[in-house]
């Protein structure tokens, strides 16, 4: 990436105070309505889960189409889809452990998401190294902050890097961890609320709405990232506060609608 392009990208991701304050105020109003209706605490935990997902998506190294040609580092698929894949694998584990208590379920969900990413990221590197003879290299940093490996000389000519340097691998695992944790938190909160309301299909409804909210937040975060991101060392990572604020508002709205569904049943 040229210096000009890098500067333009940085400006595009700059924190914008006015829209952020408006979004925060709207989110607070929705949560206040939730408290008035008696669902405030559950709603707050759903919003917390969404914030964890939005933060986690920024850790996941996604290279999109350029990564499929070895032109950019990261995993060769879309941001929301990969994050959702990891998060839902975590949700699967968390839902399975739901009867063992909140702490075990949350930890199970987090580990499930992280495990999915750990295996996927390893197979991505295996594919690059043993299938294509290409070593991992970052295009955004001179040295890997975890391993101290120098990056530029391992970047092939005419590309922005390829594969997953160790910092990106660790970022992927952390992203899966946070995604699984957030998704499971939303599921457990919805499940407890629906069960308390006496719904027969509480598990199914909580599951489908947790999946839906996960996708909403993952897509919002993907818009914030705009295309590709290498992981926590990428300059785009600093944009995460904006995604968290957007996630607070979106999840507050989705959450209150999900909770008010019981009135219709």
């Amino acid at each position, binding site marked *: 990436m040229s210096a000009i392009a890098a500067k333009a990208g940085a400006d595009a991701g700059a924190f914008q105070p006015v829209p952020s304050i408006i979004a925060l105020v709207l989110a607070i109003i929705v949560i206040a309505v939730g408290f008035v209706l008696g669902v405030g605490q559950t709603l707050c935990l759903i919003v917390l889960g969404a914030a964890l997902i939005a933060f986690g998506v920024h850790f996941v190294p996604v290279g999109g189409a350029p990564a499929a040609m070895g032109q950019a580092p990261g995993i060769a698929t879309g941001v929301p889809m990969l994050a959702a894949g990891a998060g839902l694998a975590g949700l699967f584990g968390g839902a399975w452990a739901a009867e063992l*208590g909140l702490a075990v379920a949350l930890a199970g969900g987090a580990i499930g998401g992280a495990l999915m990413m750990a295996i996927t990221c390893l197979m991505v590197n295996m594919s690059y*190294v043993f299938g294509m003879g290409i070593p991992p290299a970052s295009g955004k940093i001179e040295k890997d902050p975890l391993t101290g490996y120098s990056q530029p000389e391992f970047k092939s000519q005419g590309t922005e890097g390829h594969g997953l340097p160790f910092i990106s691998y660790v970022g992927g695992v952390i992203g899966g961890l946070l995604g699984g944790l957030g998704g499971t938190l939303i599921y457990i909160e919805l499940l407890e609320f629906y069960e308390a309301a006496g719904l027969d299909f509480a598990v199914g409804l909580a599951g489908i709405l947790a999946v839906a909210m996960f996708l909403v937040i993952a897509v919002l975060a993907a818009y914030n990232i705009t295309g590709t991101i290498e992981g926590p060392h990428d300059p785009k990572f600093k944009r995460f506060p904006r995604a968290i604020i957007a996630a607070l508002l979106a999840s507050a709205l989705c959450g209150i609608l999900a909770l008010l569904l019981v009135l219709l049943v």
Partner: protein
Amino acid sequence: MQEIIIGIGVTALAGALAAVAGAAEDTESNIGSQGDPNSQVQLAPQMGYTHRIYNKAVSGEPPAYTLWVTLACGVAWAFLMMGMNAILAIVLGTVLATIVQGVYATTAYLGRTASLSKFGQPVFTDVLKSVTTVTMGHAFVAIFTTVVICYLLATVIGHPFSLPLLGIVWGLALGAAGSATGNPYYGKERQYQNQKFGAGVPISASGNIVRYAEAGQRSSIDNGFFTAKFGGPASGLCFGLIVFFELWRTVLFEHYLAGWGAVIAGAVIIIIFMVIDRYVEKWARENYGPYTEA
């Protein structure tokens, strides 16, 4: 004890089925040219390189497989509720989902290729007839095996999610694992076989995909033949390991430490995979060396 032994058996079977599903998914997406590498198939005619490669990016692989697997799970679940035999119900659900996949593939090929007519790219009806059914065959295998995994999880293991909801979770994970692992091998190694081995494709070469084979023009079915040797099995291994370890850690260790056993086992497995990745990176740098002097 019996419950654990049955759980281990299901874990092994689900892991094996997932390996088949991942391999079939990647091969299907490469023959049909779905996923990120298809950007080059779409780009090539715009750069003056007309071709006979199939072009069916219905959507990204994860949402596409979410739809197809969930559809098959939903139909199978409805038949099961009516008291139908499980195998027959799953097969009928899979057949319906495969037909939907075929319809999507046909409309995607016709629509996407027709949109390139101003660049001189023809729509080849023989390509449509010969390749669509091959992608449908692979899709059937991928969908069927994934639905069987979901069925085992819902009935034998006793996961609280219903069959269609499990279809959403594992369909998305299947597409994510298959596209993450398999896409670079199809995109870089096959479409750009004319570029240097052991290096990424220079951005300036974008669109100049390989269009000719040993005799005549390259067919998409040959792309599946090529990627089935590495990208497909690697994708299968990826999805197989995900399903296997997710189940294995829970089935074997959930009974210890009030559920924390499964969490600790998962954390240990993650650390082991991290160490392996670190070794792979180190090995690559030591054996392949830098491209240029620092």
